[in-house]
């Protein structure tokens, strides 16, 4: 499984010599490096990828690896194991049998760090991007670096970003590009305007709890700042904060305002987003991936675009969920691994995440797909103190509370079964039970 373990003594000696030859050299891959492909011959990096054969991410990684090996002679033994790689990865890393490189992201780097799986990648920030004359740190926005850190240290080389925002058809409502709603009241006024025109303002696939929760998530972090939703799992007193009730009242207002159709809670993914792409709904609050997912369903003249969920006062909290490449703390090929990451940070490679996979690339100078330009600009300008991860990292840090308490309670709120006050009461009661047994 672990290719480097099969390298014989001779190979190991040669590999060691290669590593020694490279040590301390952060600009290994200048243009002239291609002239000497034997520099790191016999060094092999192992990489367990979370991608499956045939998907764009696999094609991108293959392209990066091929170029890297051609220029450096360093082999990368990659296994595309799909999303189910996580459990195998955890087992392998815990027993020292893991790969040198693996995929990780904001959602799991804190857990991986706690388990001691992650190499400190801070030195990568000072490495020069091969052939570009600038260090890696200068190619990535502060907000993205913030989302790529665990315990204050860089945990991954970010390759692409997920976020969430309110999606609309700019071909139909072009004025929203220039003048999106800036406050909650303006957003509600916009919904009222659309409703008065006979449109259905909001679409939702209500069978997906993780999508229903976007509304309360955004309301909570805009009103209370990053961490407000996550902290509800940590102390029942946090449920008493006025911004929590206000956030729940906002969701109740959406439900009672009649902005959704009658059957939204029975809608199965991806029906609602496809109907949005067919102009049957005006808006959907969803992940940055939704534009790409609906490309084939979009009506003629459709121009998918986003605006941010309105902030509160001067605060505009934004989700920046970074995805990228991590290095095992147990790797014996740290230098080669850092070289690979600095190589993967090259502009032409990072651009592939936008052009081939339709994501917001992690590099600041990578132009995103047209539908994500607005969101990309907000991410670039975001204050690192106003950044949070997917679902405020509540799902990642308190999974039982998230799956068993918060998502069901929010479904009840979002469906209209519970009022804001009843939602608070239920959430607080169940959290108290949870903390009593697990806290």
């Amino acid at each position, binding site marked *: 499984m672990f290719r480097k373990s099969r390298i014989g003594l001779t190979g190991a000696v040669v590999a060691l010599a290669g590593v020694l030859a490279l040590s301390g050299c952060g600009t290994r891959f200048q243009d002239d490096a291609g002239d000497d492909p034997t520099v790191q011959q016999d060094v092999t990096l192992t990489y367990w990828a979370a991608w499956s054969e045939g998907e764009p991410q696999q094609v991108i990684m293959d392209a990066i690896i091929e170029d890297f090996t051609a220029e450096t002679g360093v082999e990368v033994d990659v296994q595309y194991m799909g999303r189910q790689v996580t*459990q195998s990865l955890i087992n392998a890393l815990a027993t020292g049998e893991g790969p040198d490189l693996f995929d990780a992201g904001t959602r799991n780097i804190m857990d991986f760090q706690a388990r001691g799986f992650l190499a400190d990648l801070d030195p990568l920030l000072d490495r020069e991007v091969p052939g570009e004359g600038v260090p890696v740190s200068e190619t990535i926005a502060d907000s993205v670096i913030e989302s790529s850190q665990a315990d204050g240290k860089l945990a991954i080389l970010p390759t692409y970003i997920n976020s969430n925002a309110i999606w609309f058809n700019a071909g139909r409502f072009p004025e929203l590009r220039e003048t999106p709603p800036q406050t909650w009241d303006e957003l509600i006024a916009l919904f009222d305007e659309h409703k008065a025109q006979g449109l259905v303002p909001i679409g939702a696939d209500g069978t*997906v709890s993780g999508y229903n929760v976007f509304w309360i998530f955004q309301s909570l972090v805009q009103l209370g700042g990053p961490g407000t939703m996550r902290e509800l799992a940590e102390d029942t007193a946090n449920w008493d904060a006025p911004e929590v009730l206000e956030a729940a009242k906002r969701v109740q207002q959406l439900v009672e305002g009649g902005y959704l159709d009658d059957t939204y*809670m*029975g809608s*199965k993914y991806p029906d609602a987003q496809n109907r949005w792409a067919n102009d049957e709904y005006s808006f959907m609050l969803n992940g940055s991936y939704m534009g790409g997912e609906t490309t084939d369903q979009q009506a003629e003249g459709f121009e998918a675009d986003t605006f941010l969920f309105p902030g509160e006062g001067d605060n505009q909290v934004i989700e920046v969920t970074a995805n990228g490449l991590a290095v095992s703390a147990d790797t014996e090929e740290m230098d080669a691994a850092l070289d690979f990451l600095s190589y993967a940070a090259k502009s032409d490679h990072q651009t592939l995440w936008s052009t081939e996979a339709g994501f917001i690339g992690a590099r600041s100078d990578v132009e995103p797909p047209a539908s994500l330009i607005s969101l990309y600009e907000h991410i670039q300008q975001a204050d690192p103190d106003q950044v949070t991860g997917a679902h405020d990292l509540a799902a990642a840090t308190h*999974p039982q509370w998230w799956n*068993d308490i918060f*998502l069901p309670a929010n479904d009840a709120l979002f469906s209209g079964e519970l009022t804001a006050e009843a939602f608070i009461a239920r959430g607080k009661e169940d959290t108290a039970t949870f903390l009593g047994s697990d806290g």
Partner: protein
Amino acid sequence: MTQVHEMSDIPVAGTRRAGHRGVDRVLIPFLAPAIALMTLVLVFPSAFTVLLSLVDWRGPGAPMEWVGIDNYTSLWTSRAFRVSFTNTLVLVFLGGAGIFAVVFFSLMVLRGMRGAGFIRSVIFVPYIISPIAIGAALGFLLNPQGGLNTLLDTVGLERLQRAWLAPEMVFQMIVIGLVWSVSGFYIAIVATGTDQIPPYLYEEAELAGASRWKQFWLITVPLSWESVSVASTLWIITGMKTFEIVIAFVGSQSSPPLQARTAAVQQYLATTGGPEGVPQLGRAAAVGIAIFVVTTVLVLILQRVMRRERIELS
């Protein structure tokens, strides 16, 4: 030669003799491989699962903390587990009632009918199809704009249109989908008993003026009792573990809505931590053991309830 003599002393079941201890020693070498294998693949993993249910553990690389029976007590105080467990019992009993209603009705109607074998095969087909495929297909059929609501609209029954997958309906739909998909399997099992019933019994009953319903209760049920018992036991075991069809019905983009969850889905969520979380293996083990214990108790009760003297036809 000594061994030959000892072998001849092997006790017949129910006739244990005073010298059986010596005989047991002879059996040990023969039993040892099986015992070793079972210990390796069953006893050790089971013991580890029990141990796991007494700790808080996120998996390899994470610290393991002893919590005693907290994982069990927290199950009973958890709204999510109570709902999912109640759902599971509803599925096993009401779903089971539905399945066996279909089974008995089918066997009653199909008996003696031309083409009965073909129809039975057709009913069996859904069981061959993956529950994932069935769940996904039914899920889209039941979507607000899906096939069922479209059909109701076409035939002028718009008032019956519903959001079939909404929280208040979704579990009923899952139970119906499951009954439809597995009934063919239980028909096949029970039919192994009914097929053995001599036709002349029905002919004589008809001559005596017995209705189909009476024939069913007085002939079919008593003479197929053993196969019904086997089918019921299998259903309890299968029903208590219902998982895939739930995921297929509501999709895997997120944790399934609470109203759709079964105990096995709760175990899955604890095992994986959900789409964004980390595993809680201690809790997952506790859920697994709870499912196992309840399943065992239900099977024992069922066997007791269904115990009958075997009817022999002379």
